[in-house]
């Protein structure tokens, strides 16, 4: 009999990740709905400090595989450790974030265990007593409601902002699981910060520019500064990435990043279907475009019809005046 909703406790530099706090909130809701308990799974090396952090963020029991082989992420190490803990303690559900590393991990773990994976979901809930996950596909043109077969655990990788962090700490036991003998077949030689790296997926505010900016100089002058005063980061449409104005890391859309920030501002972007695919589930969308017929206005919460080169400097000044940034 399977028991417990587990949240993988993701961590970096000894701190648990923001996504994990959100997932403990979501995990609590699922655990309550299933009449089960909420637990954390910690994988890493010298991770005793994370147990208290996980509990402070709401985890009850915390399962720990602490081994030097888990000092950096490898698929083989993480899969072997998670499998050992899962087989020993039989959780019903395992939640992880949906970063690329977690997509790498969960895809392998689900196949290894022969269990179901709902990848990169935008929602997960209990419907009629069963876990149901929701994920977009086909460039957000199709919303899929997924249910699981009888295999356990049900594995779900979840996007940011699906769960809310808990206020109350959890209580429970710390259960150590031994790292099984494993051959780790990949060797990480080096990890470096990407130059100009942007984590669009985690940004709360994204200001994107497109062809309507007119030139790379206009983009560079206006978009990053507006993004800065709004407390966010900047993105781009495929058109100007392909034109070489902006590096691919910043591309929002079907073949770039899919984002869902609190505020998405599309500046001089007409709203091609492939761009809409990457941003249409943003909470609030502001569109600024010269062409009142541009498709971007169909998804916009607020629209300004005008030249970005007039509107953006005024907007940046107004935000500065109101927020003091």
């Amino acid at each position, binding site marked *: 009999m399977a028991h417990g909703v587990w949240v993988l406790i993701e961590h970096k530099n000894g701190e648990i990740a923001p996504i994990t706090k959100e997932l403990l909130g979501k995990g609590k809701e699922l655990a309550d709905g299933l009449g089960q308990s909420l637990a954390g799974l910690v994988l890493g090396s010298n991770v005793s400090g994370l147990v208290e952090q996980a509990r402070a963020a709401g985890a009850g029991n915390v399962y720990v595989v602490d081994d030097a082989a888990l000092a950096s992420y490898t698929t083989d190490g993480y899969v072997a450790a998670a499998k050992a803990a899962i087989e020993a303690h039989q959780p019903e559900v395992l939640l992880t974030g949906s970063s690329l590393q977690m997509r790498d991990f969960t895809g*392998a773990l689900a196949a290894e265990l022969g269990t179901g994976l709902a990848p990169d979901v935008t929602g997960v809930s209990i419907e009629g007593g069963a876990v149901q996950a929701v994920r977009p*596909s086909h460039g957000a043109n199709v919303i899929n409601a997924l249910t*699981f*077969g009888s295999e356990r655990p049900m594995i779900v990788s979840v996007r940011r902002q699906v769960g809310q962090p808990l206020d109350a700490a959890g209580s429970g036991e710390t259960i150590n699981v031994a790292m099984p003998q494993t051959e780790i077949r990949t060797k990480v030689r080096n990890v*470096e910060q990407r130059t100009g790296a942007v984590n669009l997926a985690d940004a709360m505010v994204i200001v994107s520019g497109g062809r309507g900016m007119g030139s790379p100089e206009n983009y560079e002058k206006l978009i990053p500064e507006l993004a800065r005063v*709004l407390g966010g980061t900047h993105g781009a449409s495929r058109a100007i990435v392909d034109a070489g104005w902006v590096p691919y890391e910043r591309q929002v859309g079907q*073949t770039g990043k899919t984002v869902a920030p609190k505020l998405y501002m599309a500046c001089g972007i007409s709203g091609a279907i492939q761009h809409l695919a990457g941003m249409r589930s943003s909470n609030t969308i502001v569109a600024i475009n010269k062409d009142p017929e541009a498709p971007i*206005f169909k998804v916009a919460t607020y629209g300004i019809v005008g030249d970005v080169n007039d509107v953006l400097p005024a907007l940046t000044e107004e935000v500065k005046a109101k927020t003091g940034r």
Partner: protein
Amino acid sequence: MHAVVCVKQVPEQNSVKINSDTTIDASGITPIINLFDEYAIEEALQWAEKNDGKVTVISLGPDDATDSLKKALAMGANEAILINDDSLGQVGAQGAAKVVAAAIQKLGDVNIVFCGKQSTDDETGQFGPALARFLGWPQLTYVFKVHELTDSQIVVDRALEDTLETVEASLPVVITAVKDLNEPRYPSLLKIRKVSKQPIPTWTLSDLGLSADSLGGTINIAKRTPPPPRPSGEILSGDVQTQVKELVQKLIESQIL
């Protein structure tokens, strides 16, 4: 070196319709090779050329997926195999990986598999990792650069959200490609004509010693719907200063600022 590239045929645009039985209706939309798979093909071709190896492309799909396989042949792949079986119409990523793993094992001498990081239609990103597990091989996902590839070893950069990870592994191995790993070549008209008559064998589940009931069930699609319409928006009016002040006021009221 014998490289396999897994190729999925997908609709060029995602403006698909949803049938009442939750299947996807892409009729009238041009089918193309999944964008990320094109980078996988190109990378396999380049390294096979350097290592005096060969490239086999495999697609699981309906009869017309031979169009994508022919394009891959015209780009320079040596062989192509279509896996087509009536019972595979709704197979999920994990089931598809199991089938393709069986095909790769049937080929026998494969030592590297290239896939795209995900398909642009289902977007699960699950196929490559699942394939590696079913083959019992290591995986290197989100590969942004291949530094070195010999018959025994590979060194790559993986592009993650904000880090670049340099990783090495021994072959056999499964890698998944991101966009801009390389510049996929265009097949010449001459090559397109040359491969048009090249036979593409079709393998069924029974050719692979598999049965349909071993391939699914872990995930079911309960429902598929179009995205909810966004609430209708508001076009602000007045001169630039008025519009800008009103917008900022609205963002403050809705606690975005």
